[in-house]
């Protein structure tokens, strides 16, 4: 922090370092699991179809990659929303999009017959739910053509409560085994997706990051307040719309595929802001990378700690995130804010 502002050197240095850490994490996570595999045998092209290769390429690598993409997207969305709502404790699930996506996904899970042999209907329904929720939430939170922060938070809380109630209702009318499955889906999982979906999601989330990066300077100014941002030349309404949409679409897509994974979008941006500062040109990509690293580690723990039985990854993120968060809160209490 000696220089006090962002330089190219710092930008590339920090991002570069995080990229290296991410790569190492990805490799280590792929090597670890409830079943011990022989990595060399798995990677050996001459031995085709060994169980090691199958496990590595069919079960682990997709999972690890998906965890990275989902973690990155959640953290990035959290960063943007925290600036937009001027609240370093805002969580992307707060604005209600996740609740709507989850409700739609659960409806598909509970009532749609599993035809076509593919489970694409659940993510598709959930994403549709996310889009509908975005439309509803924005309409409700619009005050004179502007997306007001307090309205957004209020509407988000109410919307979540509403969809949560509907979710519980559905849980009472399905049978026990379905309810169990629904609970598991809700708690979030990055397991068992195919490469096509993961690749598509990766491109989608990186595009979202790119869109937000274009607005990085605006995010800095917006975090000072709408009036201040306007005084600094930001086209406030347009910027708020675009940023909210980008963040909401990120969250919607991710919840559709992996369920509700909490804490990543809250803790990672907050922690990274304390570590690398609040300049969004650095903070946004850093959050993506850190979120990816965090969720890959959490998922690795989720699938190795209890052997063949998996803990839902959302449980691990909360259990891990809370103490880390509390520690950093105590250490950097002054840096939190002047409110």
């Amino acid at each position, binding site marked *: 922090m000696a*220089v*006090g*502002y962002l330089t190219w050197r710092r930008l590339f240095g920090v991002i570069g370092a995080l990229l290296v850490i991410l790569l190492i994490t990805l490799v280590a996570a792929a090597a670890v699991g409830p079943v011990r595999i022989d990595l060399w045998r798995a990677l050996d092209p001459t031995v085709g179809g060994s169980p090691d290769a199958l496990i590595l390429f069919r079960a682990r690598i997709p999972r690890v990659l998906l965890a990275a993409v989902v973690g990155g997207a959640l953290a990035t969305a959290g960063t943007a929303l925290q600036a937009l709502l001027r609240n370093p404790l805002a969580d992307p699930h707060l604005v209600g999009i996740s609740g709507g996506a989850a409700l739609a996904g659960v409806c598909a899970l509970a009532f749609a017959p599993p035809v076509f042999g593919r489970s694409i209907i659940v993510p598709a329904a959930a994403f549709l739910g996310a889009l509908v929720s975005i439309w509803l939430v924005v309409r409700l939170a619009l005050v004179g053509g502007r997306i007001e922060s307090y309205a957004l938070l209020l509407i988000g809380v109410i919307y979540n409560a509403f969809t949560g109630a509907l979710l519980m209702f559905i849980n009472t009318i399905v049978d026990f085994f379905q309810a169990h499955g629904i609970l598991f889906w809700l708690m979030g999982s990055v397991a068992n997706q195919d490469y096509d979906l993961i690749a598509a999601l990766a491109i989608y989330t990186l595009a979202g990051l790119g869109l937000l990066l274009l607005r990085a*300077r605006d995010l*800095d100014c917006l975090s*000072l307040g709408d009036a201040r941002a306007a*005084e600094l030349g930001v086209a406030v309404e347009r910027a708020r719309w675009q940023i909210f949409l980008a963040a909401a679409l990120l969250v919607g897509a991710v919840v559709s595929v992996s369920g509700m994974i909490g804490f990543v979008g809250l803790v990672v941006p907050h922690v990274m802001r304390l570590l690398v*500062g609040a300049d969004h040109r650095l903070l946004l990509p850093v959050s993506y990378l850190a979120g990816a690293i965090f969720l890959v580690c959490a998922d690795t723990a989720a699938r190795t700690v209890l052997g063949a039985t998996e803990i839902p990854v959302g449980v691990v993120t909360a259990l891990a995130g809370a103490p880390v968060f509390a520690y950093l809160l105590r250490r950097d209490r002054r840096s*939190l804010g002047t409110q």
Partner: protein
Amino acid sequence: MRLCAERVRFSYPRGADVVSDVSLAVGSGEMLAVAGPNGSGKSTLLGLLSGVSTPSAGQVLLEGRDVRTIDRREMARSIAVVPQDAAMTFPFTVAETVLMGRAPHRGRFGLETPRDVAVAERAMERTGVSEFAGRPVTELSGGERQRVVIARALAQEPRILLLDEPTTHLDLRHATAVLDLLAELNVTDGVAIVAVLHDLTSAAMHFGRIAFLRAGQLVAEGSPEEIVQESMIRRVFDVDVRVRMDAGVLVVHPMPKRPN
């Protein structure tokens, strides 16, 4: 560069007028002080002048152009605002905060140029916050933060500077320094200044024109000699004062009620 408000009115929906029928102008190189009791609409007027708030009636013109038609970035290159409160939620450093003043001059991509950095450093020097450059603003005192905000406005290299009670949290030394700085900006750089001030003595000392607002209306406007008079002050502020000339300087003495 001339900024004028023409018969502007501002009111909240279903509310009374906060500002009604005010016409005020400031030209290149002018220094205008705006004063009045609390709630007289001073901050609102500044908001209208900067173009951030839209008047319910009337218009605000910058160089003859309605500010509603001017792109916000262009506005921000001409007009900088120092707001009343400087609450900071996020731990930007002082340098980062001041550099945000360069935002209207920058494109979407890329980091600040060496010139941007130089401008920001000069601004920090002039407001005496260079020593805090690397520290998060959230760690500073209210007065230090206010100076940082002034530096940010300076970094915008504006032609017109609007300040809302810029010396409120500052100690005597720094308040004096800021007022001296404003005078310097005005004389040396030709920046027009509009400042909301409570201290009438300082206003009289540094500003060429003073405007009094009361209940959203412009009551009087003119040179300090014309405006700062006991009868006028009683009319606007509802308080008795004594105004004296002291070694060529107009001084306003509040008169506390003496207990018997």
